[in-house]
């Protein structure tokens, strides 16, 4: 069970700058439209039963406690093997995340999963998306009390106001974040305030909700991509206060 590729590689650390951070990467080619964007204008819903099964398994993670919250789950998807991240598709990625969470929570063992998939004809040469850690983040029972809404009231006033010039910088380290690489160290402008929300960088790792103010920050296309960028393009993105500092003048 150990030597073949269907065994699971252990996840090493978190993925602040993982393969999932796709904004601005080049080389993926044209968007491939499916039937729902061409002839079948009103096609929607699941087109495979196993997609719905994965969707339901994800929902169940929040009931049985394997996933403490959405941020914890999102990070399990970011931790899958980068090759699988690109090749497995959306429900394949979710499946990898689900398996990681279930094994880390001790609800299933990796051996159980491996035996079952091999019995069902899983191809031995296939890589596996799941990468459970031997030392997963710990969450208290209270933190596993999943609350769907992530907005919170806080007494602290927002540090920035509408029109303020700001720059986002990486907090460093390894772990979940919602600050993509492509906007880092580029000056932007606050265009909306959204109140305080659960801070994903803390909440994904059992460090509490630690709510922080959330802003929409607007960037000019040329500031992000250079003078040869498409003209008259602006980019709006929602960023948490700890990522932001006053943009230096000049």
């Amino acid at each position: 069970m150990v030597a073949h590729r269907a065994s699971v590689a252990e996840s090493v650390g978190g993925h602040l700058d993982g393969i999932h951070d796709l904004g601005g990467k080049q080389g993926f080619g044209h968007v491939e439209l499916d039937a729902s964007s061409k002839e079948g204008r009103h096609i929607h819903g699941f087109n495979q039963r196993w997609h719905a099964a994965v969707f339901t398994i994800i929902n169940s993670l929040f009931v049985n406690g394997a996933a403490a919250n959405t941020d914890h789950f999102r990070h399990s998807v970011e931790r899958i093997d980068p090759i699988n991240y690109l090749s497995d598709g959306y429900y394949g990625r979710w499946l990898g995340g689900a398996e990681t969470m279930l094994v880390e929570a001790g609800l299933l063992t990796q051996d159980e999963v491996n035996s079952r998939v091999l019995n069902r004809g899983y191809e031995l040469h296939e890589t596996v998306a799941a990468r459970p850690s031997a030392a997963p983040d710990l969450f208290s029972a209270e933190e596993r009390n999943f609350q769907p809404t992530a907005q919170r009231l806080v007494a602290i006033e927002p540090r920035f106001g509408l029109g303020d010039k700001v720059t986002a910088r990486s907090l460093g380290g390894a772990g979940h974040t919602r600050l993509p690489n492509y906007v880092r160290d580029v000056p932007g402008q606050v265009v909306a305030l959204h109140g305080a929300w659960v801070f994903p960088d803390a909440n994904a790792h059992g460090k509490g909700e630690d709510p922080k103010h959330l802003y929409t920050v607007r960037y000019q296309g040329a500031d992000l991509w250079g003078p040869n960028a498409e003209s008259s393009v602006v980019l709006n993105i929602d960023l948490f206060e700890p990522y932001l500092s006053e943009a230096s003048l000049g």
Partner: protein
Amino acid sequence: MSEKSAAIRAEALESLLVEKGLLDTARIDDVLTLYNERVGPMNGAMLVAKAWRDAHFKQQLLADGTAAIAQFSFEGGQVDKLVVVENTAEVHNVVVCTLCSCYPWAILGLPPKWYKDPAYRSRVVREPRAVLTDFGTHLPAEQEVRVWDSSAEVRYMVLPVQPKGWETLSEGELVNKITRDSMIGVEVLAEVAE
């Protein structure tokens, strides 16, 4: 992992969880029914049609989308806060989630495959005009393009421009013509010859 292997792995996980009492297969049927029948882009299309016919509702929807849609009790999740952005002759809006695939499920249903694939997520923030041509959408150079990257829990929907000639249609007729892609912002609605 191939599609076939992923399906095997999903079914293996499902069977293990059912045996341990951690999953009820009836819930999978519920999820299929919910997203195939009740949650889909027809909910967003209803909001757009209503906004085009009711100036007061449109003003509410643009000012506070979350409050404006509360009356409809949409199922499906993923819309803790809704921001609706309006397309005009001067501005065209388009929505993405570069870090995962955040999407307003309750009003647009499950996202299309391309929305979750690397090509769209990587490229639309960098060259939105070029990406829109993949959808057959060609924007005038003077129209500003605003891309919205849903990186937190705020969800975005585009209010498309109503095509000329649709002013006499009822809200019910409009719902069948307003497309999901126009509410993501990759399509500009136009009268299609039948």
